[in-house]
């Protein structure tokens, strides 16, 4: 059986470039101070840190879906990956809630600009 090769390194490169770009964006010039008025420095920090973790989670989620679609994973691997990601997402929301942050507050780029507008 052949390794699923060339696609993966290129994908990784693209994903890493994307992540780098987003991290640069997120940390450039005290963005948090400008884009919002956090109640405290604590919340501002939490937002930044959890935001970065959420970025990573999204990246991992995309990778996971691609692996799922690639069809070369066993059922057990799929299950494990899914469980891990699900727990990660739950954990992030829990932590965010502890700082009074909603899931959409973790979008570093544009805060609450998600979901359908009603």
């Amino acid at each position, binding site marked *: *059986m052949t*390794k*699923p090769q060339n696609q*993966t390194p290129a994908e*990784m490169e693209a*994903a*890493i470039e994307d*992540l*780098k770009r987003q*991290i*640069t*964006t997120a*940390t*450039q*010039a*005290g*963005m948090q*101070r*400008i*884009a919002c008025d956090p109640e405290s*420095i604590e919340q501002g*920090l939490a937002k930044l840190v959890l935001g970065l973790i959420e970025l*990573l989670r999204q*990246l991992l989620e995309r*990778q996971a879906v691609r*692996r799922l679609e690639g069809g*070369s*994973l*066993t059922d057990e*691997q799929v299950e494990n990956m899914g469980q891990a990601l699900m727990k990660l997402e739950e954990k992030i929301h829990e932590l965010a809630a502890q700082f009074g942050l909603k899931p959409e507050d973790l979008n570093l*780029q*544009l*805060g609450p*600009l998600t979901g*359908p*507008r*009603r």
Partner: protein
Amino acid sequence: MASPNIISIGGDASDELSLLDILDHVLNAGVVIQGSIVISLGGVDLVYVGLNVVLTSVETALRTIEADQQKSLDKGK
């Protein structure tokens, strides 16, 4: 005063939205000149020279995860 140029299709545009969008563009889009990145905490400017280190670590971590997954995939065949 910056005027709104965002249209929410099927909804109504609000000023808050336009403001966020403008800030997003001004802060995130455009040319970056390599140099020091400054983060301010509590009014104190910190020059974050460690950014490259953070990025390198993340890269390495991601590559390691990927390599491990690849290894276990190959073992399973």
